[in-house]
């Protein structure tokens, strides 16, 4: 069977790529047994480079190819010992970040797995060995530069900023106000830089409320920040209170500012013990606070773990739906989407400006603001718009990609790791399922983003914040994922895309519509894999080709018939009349 766990979207042969990129060097080249969880043991030849593990089946009846970027590996364990009994009991067990495990068996004699183990450990976890992450070695060239996709000034200008109420400030140019925020921030016109500094003292990690998005018509805004440092004693800060009031007043019609605290109420209360908390009614008269009940990174990590348990290697068949329910994954997706819908609805209906925060404002907050913006602003539903959205709300605002993913880090059990960004992409996928014509990109685009979230081939998702990226000169020394995507956009386009301006997209955040993203979470299982490419999309593309073919042939026929007729103007159906007629159809 040809369909084994091969990386679908990365299937160039190893050789081609090594020629393309001068930085490849093969470190291991040996025969192993790949213990395929679906088809049993397969003898293959494994090549390990500083970027990937590549295995080709040596068996005639199997066309299996494994192609795994080392960045995907979260854990490498030795399986069995030199004296273990049983067939294929000695080897390596590899846990991956992308919902699969790999198991290789080797010959028991002569420490045959030692070099493989050492090389893999070295290059999968370069940080522990003082080695650079592969992205810094990657010399791929693309004809577009993905680093130019996001320019904050341009993006704010697109939003109509600055305006009478909002200004762009460079107070954080050297990351002195807040080291996890971007250099460029949009703040109320009436708040001075000194005000901002004072507010920063009252917000966790100095992440002050700043503008994410402004409604082009009613001028309500989405503002993001971290929790206020209320603490057990219920501290207040006049500057913070005043600042929120200034934000509220940027939109004159409204009497209250809506605050969405992404956390469950109890968590927000519990955060007081560590100095955090939430905006109380007493202190913030002109604000209404709602909790959105979204759980923290640890709950999400455990939930995804349970998803893996029921889909890999075997899909829990006898009680699929209740097993799925017990992972709570879709329930979390539902809560995130519901929260984003509420944010979007507030803003879109012009009811009030919205302030969103969780604890530090870099996980749940990023999910909520970016999803709400995706619902409100059709620009973000285009390929480049989405790249800008990710670049802005996630990368520049300090979602801790390095900690959440653990790039090049061997500490697989790090409590900081969590699939928050994956969850966001899942939410986007759910929306694209409900609105098949609303997004310029297809499922493959989303899967490619996730693949390179882990792969370390691009610099896009490296490091925790902009200041760290700047220090490492990431944009100069690495390639952007958007270079890969934008240089071959057609592959990532949704043929059904219908560009619609100003349409707010409200998905139905109901369990009746949310689905497990089978093509991502269960993609390694050849028995579950759904048809690729999507037959509906494929048919559409075929029809497009057919249309072009027909038009061409029609033109040829018309040319031919016009050649026969010496004077086309005398003929009622001469090409001069017919051509425009046919064309008006399209």
């Amino acid at each position: 069977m040809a369909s084994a766990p091969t990386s679908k979207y990365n299937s160039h042969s190893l050789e081609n790529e090594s020629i393309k990129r001068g930085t490849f060097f093969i470190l291991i080249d040996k025969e192993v047994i790949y213990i395929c969880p679906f088809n049993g043991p397969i003898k293959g030849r494994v090549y390990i480079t500083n970027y990937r593990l590549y295995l080709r089946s040596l068996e005639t009846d199997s066309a299996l190819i494994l192609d795994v970027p080392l960045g995907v590996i979260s854990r490498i364990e030795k399986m069995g010992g030199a004296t273990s009994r049983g067939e294929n009991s000695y080897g390596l067990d590899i846990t991956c970040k992308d919902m699969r495990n790999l198991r290789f068996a080797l010959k028991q004699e002569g420490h045959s797995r030692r070099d493989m183990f050492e090389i893999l450990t070295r290059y999968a976890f370069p940080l522990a060995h003082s080695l650079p992450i592969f992205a810094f070695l990657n010399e791929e060239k693309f004809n577009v530069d993905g680093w130019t996709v996001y320019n904050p000034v341009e993006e704010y200008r697109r939003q109509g900023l600055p305006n009478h109420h909002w200004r762009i400030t460079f107070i954080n140019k050297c990351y002195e106000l807040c080291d996890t925020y971007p250099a460029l921030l949009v703040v109320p016109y009436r708040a001075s830089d000194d005000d901002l500094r004072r507010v920063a003292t009252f917000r966790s990690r100095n992440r002050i409320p700043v503008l994410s998005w402004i409604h082009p018509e009613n001028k309500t805004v989405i503002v993001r920040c971290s929790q206020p440092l209320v603490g057990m004693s219920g501290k207040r800060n006049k500057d913070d209170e005043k600042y929120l009031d200034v934000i509220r007043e940027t939109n004159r019609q409204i009497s209250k500012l809506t605050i969405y605290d992404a956390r469950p109420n109890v968590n927000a209360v519990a955060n007081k013990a560590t100095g955090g908390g939430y905006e109380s009614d007493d202190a913030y008269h002109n604000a209404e606070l709602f909790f959105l009940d979204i759980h923290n990174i640890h709950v999400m990590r455990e939930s995804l773990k349970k998803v893996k348990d029921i889909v890999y290697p075997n899909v829990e068949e006898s009680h699929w739906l209740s097993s799925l329910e017990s992972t709570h994954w879709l329930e979390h997706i539902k809560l995130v989407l519901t929260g984003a819908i509420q944010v979007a609805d507030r803003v879109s209906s012009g009811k009030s400006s919205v302030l969103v925060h969780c604890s530090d404002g870099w996980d749940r907050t990023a999910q909520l603001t970016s999803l709400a913006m995706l619902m409100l602003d059709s620009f973000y539903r285009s390929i480049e718009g989405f790249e800008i959205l990710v670049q802005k709300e996630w990368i520049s605002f300090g979602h801790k990609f390095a900690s959440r993913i653990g790039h090049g880090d061997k500490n697989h059990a790090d409590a900081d790791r969590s699939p928050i960004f994956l969850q966001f992409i899942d939410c986007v996928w759910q929306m694209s399922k409900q609105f098949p014509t609303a997004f310029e990109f297809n499922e493959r685009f989303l899967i490619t983003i996730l693949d390179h979230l882990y792969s370390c081939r691009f610099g896009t998702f490296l490091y925790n914040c902009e200041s760290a990226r700047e220090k490492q000169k990431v944009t100069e020394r690495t390639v952007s994922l958007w270079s890969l995507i934008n240089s071959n956009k057609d592959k990532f386009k949704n043929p059904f895309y219908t560009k619609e301006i100003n349409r707010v997209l409200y998905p139905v955040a109901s369990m009746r519509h949310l689905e497990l993203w089978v093509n991502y979470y269960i993609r390694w299982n050849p028995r579950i894999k759904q048809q690729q490419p999507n037959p509906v999309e494929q048919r559409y593309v075929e029809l497009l080709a057919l249309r072009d073919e027909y038009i061409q042939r029609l033109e040829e026929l018309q040319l031919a018939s016009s050649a026969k007729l010496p004077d086309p103007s005398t003929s009622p159906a001469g090409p001069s009349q017919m051509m425009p007629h046919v064309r008006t159809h399209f």
Partner: protein
Amino acid sequence: MTPIITVPWDEEHKLPGLQSQAIKRCFPVDREIVVNEVSFVRKCIATDTSQYDLWGKLICSNFKISFITDDPMPLQRFHYRNLLLGEHDVPLTCIEQIVTVNDHKRKQKVLGPNQKLKFNPTELIIYCKDFRIVRFRFDESGPESAKKVCLAIAHYSQPTDLQLLFAFEYVGKKYHNSGGSGAVGGSNQKTPFFETYSDWDREIKRTGASGWRVCSINEGYMISTCLPEYFVVPSSLADQDLKIFSHSFVGRRMPLWCWSHSNGSALVRMALIKDVLQQRKIDQRICNAITKSHPQRSDVYKSDLDKTLPNIQEIQAAFVKLKQLCVNEPFEETEEKWLSSLENTRWLEYVRAFLKHSAELVYILESRHLSVVLQEEEGRDLSCIVASLVQVMLDPHFRTITGFQSLIQKEWVMAGYQFLDRCNHLKRSEKESPLFLLFLDATWQLLEQYPAAFEFSETYLAVLYDSTRISLFGTFLFNSPHQRVKQSTEFAISKNIQLGDEKGLKFPSVWDWSLQFTAKDRTLFHNPLYIGKSTPCIQNGSVKSFKRTKKSYSSTLRGMPGSLRNGIISDPDLVPRRNSLILKAKPDPPPPPTSQDHGAEQYFREWFSKPADLHGVILPHVSGTHVKLWKLCYFRWVPEAQIHLGGFITAFHKLSLLADEVDALSRTLRQHRAGSLDAGHAGPDESRMYFRVSAHATPGTPDFLSSAFPFSPVGNLCRRSISGTPLSKFLSGAKIWLSTETLANED
């Protein structure tokens, strides 16, 4: 028995003439009689507010209940209308339960037939079989009239006799008017009914079956009243033998041929042999005969459906739970446990079981080249589903609209599926079971998995399901063809209708879709993804026409001697499988094992490893992740579940526009080739698409589209919340009366 419609209501009105124009518009059906009516009725639209409620007149006729209003439907911006029904109407046969309520006295009562009602109802709630729930309030209407209408609805929706169903009245009148046959609307000539010898004969020839013949021993239903007059049997069994054997079968339902594979394997269905002494002998004779009819004399594979599949009671119980979950229970409260609740209904599990079992039989027929005999107690319930699914998977002809309809005629209507009892048209609930829906649901799963393999759309399947509950048509009204003949003959005699040579009255057929929908609305039945055989397609960049392969079944093969093709084992690997249209370079599959014993598992694995040939066999994925809930069918009346401007229909819309464009171009090209210079004047009526390219239309998604399209949940229970997020408060008001189980049956 006196099969005469009695109209015991003083206020009887006859149409036409006396009624207003508005009412006439709503009663297009000939012979429809208004039984009772009440004015100043409020139809509830939302549960939390009365601002959207509509005022009008509630009418009970002998066919349906109607609500006639001059108020426009709020939030409704498209028109997809059943010609027989107004947008607020419910056919009487679609009514499941009638609940009357008096707020002031805090009394509620479920109304059965011929029951008394001791209070004047302030509210009437109709629970429909199609998952709708409609609610009327009588605050401003005359209390006595309201009560009478409620009682009339209860009476007419729960008739005591088959001949009281509207179809009889309707068809009787037609005969009276025209004085004979042919009066009833032009039935769709393309769909064979399998009522005649020739239909069966053509089917034998179409499939290339040799060794099978049409048998007419049941002419006049002399042998069995639950078999069709003509059916197909092994050629080696003589009529005389069959007559003798028939006594041993339950219901005298001897083996019936369903279909033959091009490799000669046949699909056969039969009842159990009840005669224990004769069992072995007869079984042996039958099997030998089937073996003889096989060109390779292959063995017979028997599948005992009663032992392997859920029974009709279990299926009914699953359906009741599914319905309860989908519509009766408050939306928000079922959210948290939705997945496990859905699992607990077992509906999807049963759909999977039928798909899986049918796929296994496909393996037996196609790969092991064995004939398959479906065995079931009476052979007229589970067999209908399995026989149909096997044929849908194996034969692309049954994936066309005409083919699918002929399949339903062949394996359901003529095979004696007890529509009357299973649909429970007479409300004797103990025999009810939604096997036909389960078949449509399983077909939908295949359509969902192979969206380009079917000529029809999911709208077609949903509309077909709805048509089982419109008692105008004869198609889904009877337990057997014989019952139609017997009952309608009795009826004809009692009404002095001259039948002449005809066997019973000819009822309108569901397949005559023009009775229900305009030509434009019928185009929604067409799947824009479907690639018809004659349609040119792209192959490796160039346009080619499909070539028929030996393995394809088509009506044009009719008339060719069966023996020419039969028995030829076509090597499956000689026929490249097509993934839709584009041939993909795939590594060579492992050579097929020469032994016939390789398991079903391996067969499936190999099949799934190749791209599917949409004009060949299609097999379902049956894992829990693949078998899904048919949302259009079950959620279309649930406002909170609608995705406004979303759902698959939005992609369908885009596809239709493109397919329409391609069709138009293709017509122009054809005209060019035909030498006509008058090109490009193909009228819009020629289009097979509902959504068409037009100069003035904006390219975006039309704003009336929602995931429920073409159905509209407006007017059913409640409206969606403004933000798009379903909020429980919209249902809190409804909870009080939503659960019928809490209703006390007071008198």
